[in-house]
């Protein structure tokens, strides 16, 4: 474990009145063999070597409502995806609901329901908004059998760091609100 990870862990652990550290599911979207769509997978490998203890990495390909419904109560989520609409290699880390209404950022790994709809439906079915962040990397090429483009490949360490930061943000948010409260009756 690196010094950074240790510091992050201690920062959380040293908070006054902390309970058990809430868990965070990291949902990694994309496809390893489809050009820049493989960036989230590649960055998750970097993160895996130095993963915060409360984070669980799940490589899912496309985010489905069921993926978000399966996040345990009290836990949070970080979604990582490649997207068009931003510079190739540029990285955004924003709240899940930051995607709602932003037409310019278009995740490319799901072509059934748009990401905002998936998030919105999951929120509705869970009974309250899921605590989470999304990390997107700008991508240029999604061609099957092609490698990452140069700019995206060079940005992988930054993407991994952004995933770690997002995990920290979600963990802190969960601690502040005392976990993801139980869902309302359906």
């Amino acid at each position, binding site marked *: 474990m690196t010094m950074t990870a240790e510091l992050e862990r201690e920062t959380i652990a040293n908070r006054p009145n902390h309970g058990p550290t809430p868990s965070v599911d990291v949902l990694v979207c994309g496809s390893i063999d489809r050009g820049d769509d493989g960036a989230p997978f590649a960055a998750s490998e970097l993160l895996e070597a130095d993963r915060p203890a409360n984070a669980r990495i799940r490589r899912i390909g496309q985010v489905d409502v069921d993926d978000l419904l399966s996040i345990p109560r009290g836990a949070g989520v970080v979604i990582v995806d490649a997207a068009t609409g931003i510079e190739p290699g540029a990285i955004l880390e924003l709240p899940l609901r930051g995607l709602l209404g932003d037409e310019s950022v278009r995740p490319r790994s799901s072509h059934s329901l748009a990401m905002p*709809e998936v998030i919105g*439906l999951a929120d509705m079915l869970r009974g309250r908004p899921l605590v989470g962040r999304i990390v997107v990397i700008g991508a240029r090429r999604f061609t099957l059998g092609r490698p990452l483009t140069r700019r995206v490949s060079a940005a992988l360490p930054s993407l991994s760091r952004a995933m770690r930061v997002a995990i920290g943000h979600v963990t802190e948010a969960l601690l502040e609100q005392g976990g993801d409260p139980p869902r309302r009756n359906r």
Partner: protein
Amino acid sequence: MHDTDTLAEPSGDLEVDVAGLTRVEGEGSLRLRVRDGVVQEAHLEIFEAPRYFERLVVGRSPDEVIDIVARICGICPVAYQMTAVHAFEQAIGISIDPAVRDLRRLLYCGEWIESHALHIYLLHLPDFLGYASALELAKDHRSEVVSGLELKKLGNSIVGLVGGRAIHPVSVRVGGFSRTFRREEISSLREALDEGLEIALATVELVSGLATPDFHREARLVALRHPSEYPMNEGRITSTDGLDLDATAWPTEFRERQVSWSHALQSRGRDEQPYLLGPSSRITLAGGQLHPIAAKALEATGLRDAIRTNPYRSIVARAIELVDAVAEAIDIVDRYVPPSVAAEPWRPRRASAGWATEAPRGLIFHAYEIDDRGLVRHAQIVPPTSQNQAAIEADLAAFAPRVLHLPKAEATHRIEQLIRSYDPCISCATHFLDLSVEAV
């Protein structure tokens, strides 16, 4: 009681440009021009980048190709796998175990359930109930959205079990599967299927009561027909005007061609006429082979003729097929006995063959040439949406004059709703390769 929304006679002008069609799979747009009541232009523009799969599979072994073509679509990967594996088995001359045949049908049922549930509840139902999205719909119709998600989950669980994973499955192999499945594994689906059947039957009731525009036309419908079962993996290519072809013979009757406004190749019959595939075509041409539970549900709707002539009624056809797929899956689960081997052994040989199966959106055709090492030399992949594109445009041109009296926003909505009636999968449609080499 049905078709309650009668529209006025044609008159006037209309220009509709929908830059990004929503609630369809993939990226496309719509361009419509009507002058003095006459349609000048009706184009479904498919601009999602072509993905060159027909070239990508050259030099690959059949089992590699089966996994590669699954990547064409995240919604209907099984259709690509099933069509490819049958084409290869036809070429190589392999007979499969009846239990493998059942497992493949079960896998296809899973895809139909997942795809149809997604389209009915989350993509198309918002149109009929006056909502802009599934999210908006869910605020007022939570139970309907939950039903759709439960059916979708059921389909995903079948594909996940038999296919190895729910999206882009990996278990299909020439001669069978990558492994055998124990009876207990397959039986584990039974309880969810029973619940799914109840939801599917309720879906038919729900969608058969929806009001639709009173738009009827006699389109040329094309679908597989099988003598003893509702068509999925096998059957002959038939049409409402009497076509009856072997599943390998698609190229003798149909042609692909390029049009300037689409990255997808369009298909037409030899006579240059468009034709329509999909649930409405299958119900019309092969409805006699529906599972008895689905046949009874269809009868109760009283909409069999409307399904044939009114494209907006495709939502009912899709719901009937949901019932059929769930009921069929239950039967397969109940009679399942594991095959003696996971996959029949085979030896490569120089050969070529084509095959057609029924994807959720309609007939899909693949043809492959393989060399004596078993590697692909040439491939042709014809998905349903590219075949339907010309028929969609023809229906669009026929329907457009009927909405000229409506406010533009309402007219545009009706037209988008019509496009969504065909459940176009644009991602599938743009897989082709067109290489132009100029000699210098």
